[in-house]
């Protein structure tokens, strides 16, 4: 069976396991099997039935977005890895350019 490596923050939903064996002939089937085994993972990996935009799936060093996406075929020897894209940003009500004193801005 292929294996999927779980990112550290999501291991709380796999009982602490870092690698999960999954059934399936494609990446999509393997992920489907993963969330069947560990249903609490679903909301963090999928939005509706699409992978969340910040969830990347790698096979070795290859991002499946540059392969055939969820239809990428896999075999039992493959090691998949879920890698979150870390991103952040300031709220739109940034004080930039508004000349608000620091003390007032932090109040």
């Amino acid at each position: 069976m292929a294996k999927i490596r779980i990112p550290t923050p999501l291991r709380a939903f796999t009982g602490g396991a870092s690698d999960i064996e999954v059934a399936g002939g494609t990446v999509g089937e393997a992920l489907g099997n993963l969330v069947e085994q560990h249903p609490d993972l679903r909301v963090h990996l999928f939005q509706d039935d699409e992978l969340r935009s910040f969830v990347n799936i790698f096979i070795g060093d290859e991002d499946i977005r540059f392969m055939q996406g969820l239809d990428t075929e896999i075999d039992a020897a493959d090691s998949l890895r879920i890698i979150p894209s870390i991103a952040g940003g300031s709220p739109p009500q940034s004080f930039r350019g508004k000349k608000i004193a620091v003390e007032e801005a932090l109040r």
Partner: protein
Amino acid sequence: MDVQLSRELQRKIFEQMEASYPNEGGGFLLGEAQADAITVLDVIEVENTFAEEEQYHRYAMKPQDWMRLEDEADERGLSLVGYYHSHPDSPAIPSEYDREHALPNFVYVITSVMMARAVDMRVWRLRPDRGAFEEGTLSLT
């Protein structure tokens, strides 16, 4: 959630965030997590890869940085416990953009940098239902 961070590591984050100003900067937090007690033992700067003209309000890392540092944490017997980034000229509270891109069980340390000076640091964690962030306590050691 209580996050323990040494004053030395906090200074390291502040210096990096001030150097990144007026753009956002960030990096990973390595340490130990036991339920609601998080101890940060190292901070590692990671390059902001967002489009340069948007870096004043956006920060992003390459997936390869996650892969490399998660492996490094494993080798050092530590965990990837969270990440930090700055909000230039904005308060240290998570944005909607932060929430949409957040993971549970992960510490989000936000530093407010006002006019090139780091003035505030607050710690947050996404609720398991993804609905909102909850603020934690920051204990400086």
